[in-house]
């Protein structure tokens, strides 16, 4: 089936089979391997991308459903250098193996796009859908808080 959609700001088309997930389309068809497959069943959040302005799990969406939509992946975030959130992750040591990081960053970018000044509760809700097995969540939470402080100065 043919799909046409906006990927990281550029109009793209692809010929794909109906059962490919959006995650597979992004990684295998377009070579955007920043988006990770952690669990493949919607539990871990590593495959998070922004679809029509909202964070979604690309492992639970068919590629054909992306037809006509606008999608942003982790590759778009650092197109012009690291984002504030990415810098904060480095400063706070919120990355160890890095596998979960693209998902956390995409959830964060969506959160900060929605509100410049999220409450602790809003940050926790945004982080809630993601699993990290290395750093624990404290450093990640601190990185989010750091961006918050910067953005409201």
């Amino acid at each position, binding site marked *: 089936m043919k799909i046409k959609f906006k990927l990281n700001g550029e109009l793209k088309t692809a010929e794909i089979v109906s059962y490919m997930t959006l995650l597979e389309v992004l990684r295998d068809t377009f070579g955007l391997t920043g988006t990770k497959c952690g669990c493949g069943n919607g539990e871990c959040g590593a495959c998070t991308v922004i679809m029509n302005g909202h964070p979604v799990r690309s492992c*639970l969406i068919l590629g054909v459903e992306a037809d006509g939509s606008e999608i942003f992946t982790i590759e778009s975030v650092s197109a012009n250098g690291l984002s504030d959130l990415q810098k904060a992750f480095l400063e706070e040591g919120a990355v160890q193996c890095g596998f979960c990081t693209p998902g956390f960053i995409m959830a964060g970018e969506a959160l900060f796009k929605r509100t410049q000044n999220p409450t602790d509760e809003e940050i926790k809700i945004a982080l809630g*859908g993601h699993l990290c097995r290395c750093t624990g969540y404290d450093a990640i939470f601190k990185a989010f808080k750091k961006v918050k402080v910067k953005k409201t100065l």
Partner: protein
Amino acid sequence: MIYPEYIQPVSLTDLWGKFPQDKKIYFLAGGTDLFNYLRDGLIDASSSCFVDISLLKQLDGITEESENIRIGALTTFSTISESGLLKKYCPDLVAAAKVLGTPQIANRATIGGNIGNASPAGDALPSLAAHFAKAEVANSKGSRLLNISDVFAGPKKTTLANGEIITAVVIPKIKVKAGFTVVGTFKKIGGRKSHIIAKASVAVFAVVKNKSVDYISVALGAVGPKIIEVRNISKILSGKKVSPELTEKCKDEIRKIASPIDDFRSTAEYRQEVICPLFEQALNEIVKD
């Protein structure tokens, strides 16, 4: 791996013409349950067809009618959690939508899917049962309204025929006496704080003035093969003021009617133990001086 056939109708009329014969039909909306069933081998791919209904935009959205609130089957839980109309009439459903899955899941998961999946642990279902909501079910010949409790045949089983689709859920609007307000909440318990599938859950919906109750309706999730409405609670509390004694009577009713089982998520014993405090927590949150 074998994959099911896939079709993507562009309208409801288009839908009926496109069904393949002799295949089990699975409607694909948010996909947050369906893909896991496929991966876990719970769907026989070779004899199944996924009908992607995401293009049927007329099934998306919340509208106010004179007697009812109508929620289209494709309405996501993110939309439900932000709806002013539902905050006014169904605060318990809004509370359930806010704790369903994670933001990413709630951005995709739909109310029609939550009903069609027919899990006793479905987060929207206790609330819909407490409101005596009706599901609008359509087939090629027309549509009918079904009491929400009559949609469920058992865990993960509905009474719908193959190829019948849930198009909307219709919630009757409650009449509110002067001076009284609509309150409601949803509580669930699970293994962590986020992304929980309930081990036990409860929706409480009421019309109150401080601790005086004009109307109350309570339904339980994940403590029986289907959602359980605890009708006797309205007999105990309607027209009365909530007191510790009456709350104990309500809890006795819950203990009598809950019939939980052991499964991979929890034990019958734990569920039976935890459902009463869960109800009490919900009641105390919404009924207070």
